[in-house]
């Protein structure tokens, strides 16, 4: 891949620069006021003072930074759990997210401005990071089995589909999806599962020796988990309306995540024969509460409802890791490396359903039918788009790694000599090294 990958990446980058030159201008206080004024006229709201409009950037920039940390450190290190794939997990995460946020800005901006030149502001930055989140979720489903070129192509195609679905959900359906359980988490999970299904390799059906973690790679993955957990309230509240809505989104997400941790630990111990905890469950299921509460985070749900959503999400996620992933792999021929179905897919769907229930209890002015349409549209477009993308990626021209070299950094990276020593280092340190259960 010495020439194919660099040439594709640089060509895409140059094309991106040209598109930015043609279509993107920066937001200034003047055109931001015009945009807000036209929006307010459409929604018949009162006027806000110009100083408040001007300060919007500086009020939201801290939230954007939190989302940025989640995208690059949180997702990046969450994917370092494989013992020989840490470089690829965090390195390709940076590459795909850096490319995706540029493409996401263009796609979403063009759709929302109907193909004309648009002004780039803080909301565009946040939404660009959101579009890369879908790619990183799908990346988790195919982690270890694809080449960088395939991931580059998947990024471009997935963000295009995501931008279309997001436009449909927010502008045409006018559904409420503040924390994006449906448009990001469910969409990203099922897109990735569809691609993983098409790219299924019979040769990997039996356990691959590299498809496991070691002590220190699990610790690195925990870095990602902690950053995601800490900053998730910002993620769910970043695009909520300032004021009460944003406040509710933060508080509800905070309590949902806390409740989720307790039930995730409890279920992880419960489903294991000797009652021990599984680090895979801790790394992933503790985040399910943030996913599940996202859609109704800013609705007027009471705190105990948010905690209930988080608790149920934790249970669903652990049970998914224990029972559903083997079912997917053996019956449906879909190998889900990171378990994105259990962390993003099921909790995302649950979040969408929870929003329908919340609306039926009068906690929001949104429409139940539109929420259901948004959930169906997200899953449907993800599956169709994922299948088509998978067919493109299946062409044997993208330098796919052979079966025996899956989950291995050395295919794409110059790996230090002392990689193997890492394992011996910890073994010699007299850890209680329990044998893997068969």
């Amino acid at each position, binding site marked *: 891949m010495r020439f194919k990958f660099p040439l594709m990446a640089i060509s895409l*980058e140059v094309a991106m620069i040209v598109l930015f030159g043609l279509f993107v201008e920066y937001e200034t206080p003047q055109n931001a006021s015009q945009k807000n004024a036209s929006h307010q006229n459409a929604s018949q709201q009162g006027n806000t003072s110009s100083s408040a409009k001007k300060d919007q950037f500086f009020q939201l920039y801290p939230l954007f930074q939190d989302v940025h940390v989640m995208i690059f450190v949180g997702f990046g290190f969450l994917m370092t759990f494989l013992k020989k794939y*840490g470089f690829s997990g965090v390195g390709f995460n940076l590459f795909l997210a850096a490319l995706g946020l*540029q493409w996401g800005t263009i796609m979403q901006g063009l759709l929302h401005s109907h193909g004309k030149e648009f002004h780039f502001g803080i909301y565009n930055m946040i939404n660009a990071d959101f579009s890369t989140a879908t790619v990183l979720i799908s990346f988790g489903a195919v982690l270890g089995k694809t080449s960088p070129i395939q991931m580059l192509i998947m990024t471009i195609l997935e963000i295009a589909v995501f931008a279309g679905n997001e436009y449909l959900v927010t502008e045409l359906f006018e559904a409420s999806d503040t924390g994006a359980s449906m448009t990001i988490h469910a969409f990203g999970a099922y897109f990735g599962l569809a691609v993983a299904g098409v790219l299924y390799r019979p040769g990997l059906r039996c356990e691959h020796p590299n498809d496991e973690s070691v002590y220190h790679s699990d610790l690195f993955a925990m870095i990602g988990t902690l950053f995601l957990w800490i900053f998730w309230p910002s993620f769910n509240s970043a695009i909520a309306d300032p004021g009460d809505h944003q406040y509710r989104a933060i508080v509800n997400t905070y309590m949902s995540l806390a409740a989720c941790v307790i039930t995730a630990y409890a279920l992880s111990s419960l489903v294991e024969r000797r009652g021990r905890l599984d680090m895979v469950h801790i790394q992933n299921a503790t985040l399910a509460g943030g996913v599940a509460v996202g859609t109704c985070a800013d609705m007027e749900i009471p705190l105990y409802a948010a905690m209930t959503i988080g608790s149920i999400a934790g249970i669903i996620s652990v049970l998914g890791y224990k029972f559903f992933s083997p079912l997917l792999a053996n019956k449906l021929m879909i190998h889900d490396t990171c378990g994105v179905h259990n962390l993003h897919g099921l909790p995302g769907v649950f979040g969408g359903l929870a929003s329908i229930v919340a609306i039926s209890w009068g906690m929001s002015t949104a429409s139940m039918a539109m929420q259901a349409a948004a959930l169906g549209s997200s899953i449907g477009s993800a599956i169709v788009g994922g299948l088509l993308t998978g067919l493109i990626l299946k062409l044997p021209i993208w330098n796919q790694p052979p079966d025996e070299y899956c989950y291995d950094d050395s295919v794409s990276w110059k790996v230090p000599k002392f990689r193997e020593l890492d394992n011996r280092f910890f073994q010699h340190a007299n850890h209680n090294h329990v044998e893997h259960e068969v």
Partner: protein
Amino acid sequence: MGSKYPRSLRCCLPLWALELQTAFSLLFCFFIPHDTAQVDHRFMASYQVLRNLTLMAALGFGFLSSSFRRHSWSSVAFNLFMLALGVQGTILLDHFLGQVLQWNKINNLSSIQIATMSTLPVLISAGAVLGKVNLVQLTVMVLMEAMAFGAIRFADEKVFKMTEHIIMMHGHVFGAYFGLTVAWWLSRSLPRRVGENAQTEKVQMATSSSLFAMLGTLFLWIFWPAINSALLEGTKKRNAVFNTYYALAVSAVTATSMSALSHPQGKINMVHIHNAVLAGGVAVGAPGCLISSPWISMVLGLIAGLISIWGAKCPRACLNHMLQNSSGIHYTFGLPGLLGALTYYCLQIVTEPKSSDLWIITQTVTHIGALSFAVAMGMVTGLLTGCLLSVRVWRAPHAAKYFDDQTFWEFPHLAVGF
């Protein structure tokens, strides 16, 4: 030839450190008045910027230099020490310069912010010398460099009429060349054979330490827009954030793909990724507030990424072998910083409506003068500091103990893995 056993710092380090901190505390007690805090929205905005800077300095630069397999502890921990020392020293220096030279500086949260930003060049320079010096030598280097950068800040503001923002961006260039000069001098005073053996064996990386370095890179990458906009207000701040955001994204894509291109089998080098993805942020630092369209900053990010990868491949052919492991800061902070400063100058000329010939000449002399002054000061004071660090009183580690945590740390399992 001195003994090869690590020289004990048991008397040297505590004595110097405690004396220094006592002196700092007394100077703060007598000379720095306590400012009455006014908690309003401006205070919270300043605190937000300070928080970002501290995160970058402690976590970002700390982990960035921790990629060597046997030197991870020292890199992270010494970085924290240098940051704490540099901030205190710079606040005191600003206060004395303000009194002696009529340089008006206010003492509040913004002075801590300025001090933290002024310490970043120190952390950049440390990347070039970490592994070859002990903590006492680093202490001396921090004080020398803080004084040198204080002088540059004063001269840039008074003589060259630069804004504070541009002065801080010049700090990247100053820090890079200061560090390179110190590293060059330290390597020059070694018997060649010993030095080469030490580096070949110890300048190795392991998977986990490379991942820790990636953590540092990502923190710098994420928060660099905050550093490039820290001293700006209003539309300039907004533009600086937007431009840095895109320049960093482009340099990350460019660095990754060019790293693959530069390897015979198309493999990506993690060392390239650690440094080169930051080059776009450095390049756009000075001109970011003037750029009003994103494509210009994206082109800057592209060029900076190319420069960084090209530089990472050249050391064996272009530079002395002894500088191999420290060339990263030259191509991450040095050359992209120069590119950014020159771009700022060009944009200043192009965007100014009332551009008379005399004004253009004045701007040329001022900008090139300020930039040259920063580079020259970096090299001259770096040379002086290198000479000072070679003095025997600091108990420098022997070349055979370079890049070795065992020299400074008590290890839980001394023989395991090493």
